[in-house]
């Protein structure tokens, strides 16, 4: 027994492996140094002391009655933000399903590239850009936000849905095709029941993301709590900024918590 060679968990490294490792290390370090040099750190102080600003953001809003009474008003804005996210994700969920089937390799075969290309194109554009475009197209307000959110969510949901579809057991489709059902029936009865729980789970997850995303959309005029937030920062009203952030953090945490619970039940 004692003569057994020692076994290490990792495969013994070859000379080549070591050289590769150090080369990678050197290249990454070099990239990091270049990146740092290019960002040129400097602090151009302002009249307001940072400590005072922090106090105005985090302490004053919860200690002074003047600001506490604003809490319900911001909840109204936050609810609008959540409504934008919800409307957007509902539209996206419905529209993403056909696109996902088009993009799934096991359903659409060659045509899946078409669907995948469409989804990639959507995901390449940030939702803020979509929001700017839709604000220009349909005017300032939550409607533009809903459109931006839904288009952007289709990109992600479509891709995730397509992956779910690609991972399913197609034997049920065979069975329905073999009993004389048409393509649509095979998908409806053979595929959808298998994928719907995952679809819902991803939609709820995307709703979480969309609540956060639509907070920002107000900045470009697409409705919700982002509008008062950007206004308050421009005016250096740090107390208002603080209060808005409290509302946002509260609601986002609450939604993350609830959606986590629901998703655990679903899958």
């Amino acid at each position, binding site marked *: 027994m004692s003569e057994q060679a020692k076994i290490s968990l990792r495969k013994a490294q070859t000379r080549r492996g070591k050289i590769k490792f150090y080369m990678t290390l050197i290249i990454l370090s070099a990239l990091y140094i270049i990146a740092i040099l290019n960002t040129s750190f400097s602090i151009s102080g302002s009249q307001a002391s940072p400590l005072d600003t922090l106090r105005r953001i985090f302490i004053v809003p919860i200690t002074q009655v003047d600001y506490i009474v604003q809490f319900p008003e911001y909840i109204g804005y936050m609810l609008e933000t959540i409504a934008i996210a919800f409307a957007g994700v509902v539209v996206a969920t419905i529209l993403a399903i056909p696109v996902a089937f088009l993009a799934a390799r096991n359903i659409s075969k060659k045509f899946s590239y078409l669907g995948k290309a469409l989804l990639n194109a959507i995901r390449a554009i940030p939702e803020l850009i979509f929001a700017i475009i839709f604000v220009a197209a349909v005017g300032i307000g939550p409607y533009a936000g809903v459109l931006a959110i839904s288009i952007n969510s289709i990109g992600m949901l479509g891709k995730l849905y397509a992956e779910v579809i690609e991972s399913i057991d197609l*034997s*049920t489709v*065979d*069975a*329905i*095709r*073999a*009993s*004389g*059902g*048409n393509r*649509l*029936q095979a998908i*409806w*009865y*053979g595929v959808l*029941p*298998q994928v719907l*729980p995952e679809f819902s789970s991803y939609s709820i997850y995307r709703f979480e993301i969309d609540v956060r995303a639509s907070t920002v959309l107000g900045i470009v005029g697409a409705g919700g709590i982002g509008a008062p937030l950007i206004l308050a920062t421009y005016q250096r009203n740090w107390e208002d900024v603080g209060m808005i952030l409290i509302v946002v953090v509260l609601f986002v945490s609450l939604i993350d918590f609830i959606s986590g619970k629901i998703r655990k039940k679903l899958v």
Partner: protein
Amino acid sequence: MSLVYPNGHQGLKDINLTINDGEFVVVVGMSGAGKSSLIRSINRMVTPTDGELLLDGENVLTFKERKLRQLRTNVGMVFQSYNLVKRMSVLRNVMAGRLGHTGTLRSMLGLFSQDDLQLAMNNLKRVGIEEKAYVRADQLSGGQQQRVSIARVLTQQPKVILADEPVASLDPPTSHRVMKDLRRISKEDNLTTLVNLHFIDMAMEYADRIIGLRDGQVVFDGPISEVSEATFEEIYGRPIKDDDLLGGDEE
């Protein structure tokens, strides 16, 4: 009739068979002998590359989408792995067999006629699991799941049943029970039935007629009365071993 797969593998070679109405035919042969290819050719799950396949005088090899669906409505199929939607209830799975008879929109909305639902329930009764109608399919044992898939095929009201290794995933007693159900029902409804099996004793017990395949060719075709152990040695191309027997019939 012949079948060459796209990868050049010759699945079936010069098959010439006539299956009679109401016959219970068992197709035997080793893995890769072409049993599945033969069975799947009949409802065009695979398409033979050469020859013709006549069903009630019509060559199914020329069928396009519409006729093909009509054909498949008349030819039911039972699969080795049951192919049920595990997250759906048993009754919904059985109703899936009715899709070929139901309009697309109606079926998508779940608007099946009461007659169809009665038919489905009745078929579940015939395979002895009507009390499981609203249970999710994945809650059932393998034998029960295979019986659901038989009920599904019956709900399709076919003239022909194709069963591709229906008991290969089941234990011996369950296998016998499923085969008995299948044979009883096929006799009651006078359904022409083709079953793939690789266990010799099962084939002997349930078949009216045996077709032996080897390397994609028919090497034996005859009624059960003409079959002996020598026949199987001929089909398998080697002496019979214990592995070829399933055993385990409890009755």
